């Protein structure tokens, strides 16, 4: 399965069935025996080629994405929504969405500029104001087509553009899922526990169960992380840059990297000529936190692909950085 297919599957947090089904089909086709645990995580254990006792390494990526969820309906037939996962409401205006599993087309509009007061122009339209319009003409029709709890995703196809860049939704974290699918094709000395986990965007809920149940010796989290390397951004706030390779975190808001894994990743990157960079700020948080603190503690490292405009309908990555994530993880797994 390619990255385009992976990102175009609509599966916000709590509604991972579509991506779960796609991953199961793909894994079975490739001859694996995937299982589903009680958090809805998809797990494949692939035995290593090294001599026993082998290290058991959990490599995880989350399969959910940020999205919207229907909370109600107006008399005029518009859908009221809130966020499932963090979406700045300012990126929603004038965007196209797909509603529910049937992918009913919808748009998010706003009061025309002609009718806005100076204060309106300043004021952020929050979830209280935002409505999704599917063309329903009354409340009944809206309720029938998109009942409360229906999930909504961005309708933004994957596009490759510029000098090796790609633009789409859900790179966070289908890019990590893609890397794991590719790692499963490799001969590795360690026992690989490949985990496609659920509900990261609403508080790292899936990975917590997976780390407990799988009892790994080491955890490696493959992520997409925020990157702000264009426009009005002071260099100190850039975190990481596209095109400079996979970002290795020493610390984020959820975990402090195991120092020896952190050093080892950077050494291997340098030795093998794999592009990598240190994520230069303490920001964000991810499954690394819950995996590190599972059971009596697990040495953990996070390797991320830099994503511009993360959690927006049009996230941007450089494809060479996804390649670096794959190469560095592979090399690290071979060196553990």
């Amino acid at each position, binding site marked *: 399965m390619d990255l385009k297919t992976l990102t175009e599957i609509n599966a916000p947090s709590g509604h991972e069935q579509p991506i779960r089904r796609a991953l199961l089909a793909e894994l079975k086709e490739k001859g694996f025996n995937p299982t589903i645990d009680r958090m809805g995580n998809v797990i494949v254990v692939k035995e290593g080629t090294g001599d026993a006792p082998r290290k058991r390494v959990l490599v995880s990526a989350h399969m959910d994405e940020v999205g919207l969820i229907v909370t109600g309906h*107006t008399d*005029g037939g*518009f859908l009221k929504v809130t966020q499932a996962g963090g979406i*700045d409401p*300012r*990126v*929603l*205006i*004038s*965007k*196209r969405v797909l509603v529910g599993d049937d992918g*009913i*087309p*919808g*748009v*998010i*509009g*706003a*009061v*025309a*500029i*002609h*009718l806005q007061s100076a204060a309106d*122009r*300043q*004021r*952020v339209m929050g979830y209280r*104001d935002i*409505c999704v*319009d*599917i*063309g*329903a*003409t009354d409340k009944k*029709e809206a309720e029938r*087509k998109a009942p409360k709890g229906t999930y909504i995703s961005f309708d*933004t196809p994957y*596009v490759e*553009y*510029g*000098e*090796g860049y790609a*633009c789409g939704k859900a790179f966070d974290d289908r890019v990590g899922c893609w890397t794991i699918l590719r790692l499963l094709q490799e001969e590795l000395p360690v026992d690989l526990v490949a985990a496609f986990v659920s509900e990261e965007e609403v508080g790292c809920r899936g990975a917590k169960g997976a780390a407990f149940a799988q009892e790994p010796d080491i955890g490696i989290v493959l992520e997409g992380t*925020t990157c*702000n*390397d*264009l*426009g*009005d*951004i002071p260099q100190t*706030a850039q975190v990481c840059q596209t095109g400079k390779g996979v970002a290795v975190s020493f610390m984020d808001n959820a975990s402090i990297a195991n120092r020896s894994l952190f050093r080892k990743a950077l050494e291997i990157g340098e030795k093998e000529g794999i592009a990598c960079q240190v994520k230069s700020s303490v*920001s*964000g948080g991810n499954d690394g936190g819950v995996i590190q603190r599972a059971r009596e503690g697990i040495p953990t490292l996070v390797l991320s692909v830099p994503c*511009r*405009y*993360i959690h*927006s*309908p*049009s996230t*941007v990555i450089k494809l060479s950085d996804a390649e670096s994530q794959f190469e560095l993880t592979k090399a690290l797994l071979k060196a553990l």
Partner: protein
Amino acid sequence: MDIRKILSEATSTLGVSGQEAGVAAYFAEQFRLLVDEVRVDAMYNVIAHKKGSGNGPKIMLCAHLDEIALMVMRIEDDGSVRFGSVGGVDPRILPGSRVWVHGTKGKLFGTIGALPPHLMSEEDRNNNYKMDKLHVDLGMCAGKVREQVRVGDLITFNTPFTELAGNQVAAKSLDDRACVAIMLRAAERLQRMACDAEVYFVCSAQEEVGGRGAMTAAFGVDPDLAVVLDVDFALTPGCGPDVAAPLDAMVVTHGPFVQPKLNKRLIDCAHAHHVKLSENVAGRSTGTDADEIGVNRGGVPTVLLSLPEKYMHTSVETISLDTLEEGARLLSHFVSELDAGWEDDLWI
């Protein structure tokens, strides 16, 4: 005539105010199949003439073909592109939007980026993004960008034509190409109807910067009377009945910029043919081409017929195709019923 196809093609054709050649060529081609002669004037107005019997007035129907857009203002050393607007683009629609940058070697895919919320002060987070703080990301270094993009190049929204439920469609620049489609459908209907009037279908340029195309087109056509077709605000959350009309009926406008007797004739025509209408009031200018056409040469009795549109000046402007068809039905009857006596009691 496949209206969906026409709207889909027309709304994806480049035609920004002042640079309408592309969309003008498109509409000229469409009208050529339906009328006696078509020309594109120096302002990129498309003027399509359907000959009459010789016993009717000369009527000008007018809907604008230009669209609002963005324009390249500066190329930064990191390759990001700064921009300004042509016409009234709402900056709130920009973050996360996909665009086409129309460079020297063709159009380039881009996406509009912004500073993320976690790097903003609390105050900035609670305000909308300003246009000068946003950038277009072309995924290229400055050197590559400068090879094919120049200051002044146009940037348009890359939003596919979208079909919603209830025969509604969403796209950019349905303001006012949906009304050009009304004229096309009316021209098609008039082929099968009696018609004394000389009819000039005008797709006007530069409306979004102030009725400039309509001004010269009206001079060139020199009509006896005119009907202007434009979009009006449709009811949506936050946009109530005090300023907006239901999506499912065309709108007539009352006020000093509209000739009252001619307007009554339009309303009577709608009643006679069971076309549902809403009414709007403009105490001064209408903000449409009607303002300019009404004072062309020695004066032109003019009325305004509007198609309700949700989310005007966004990339997801939404209209009802059923209302569009009703607009075309009304327009064709109104034109067909004009005769030599149309002016007899206009002013008394």
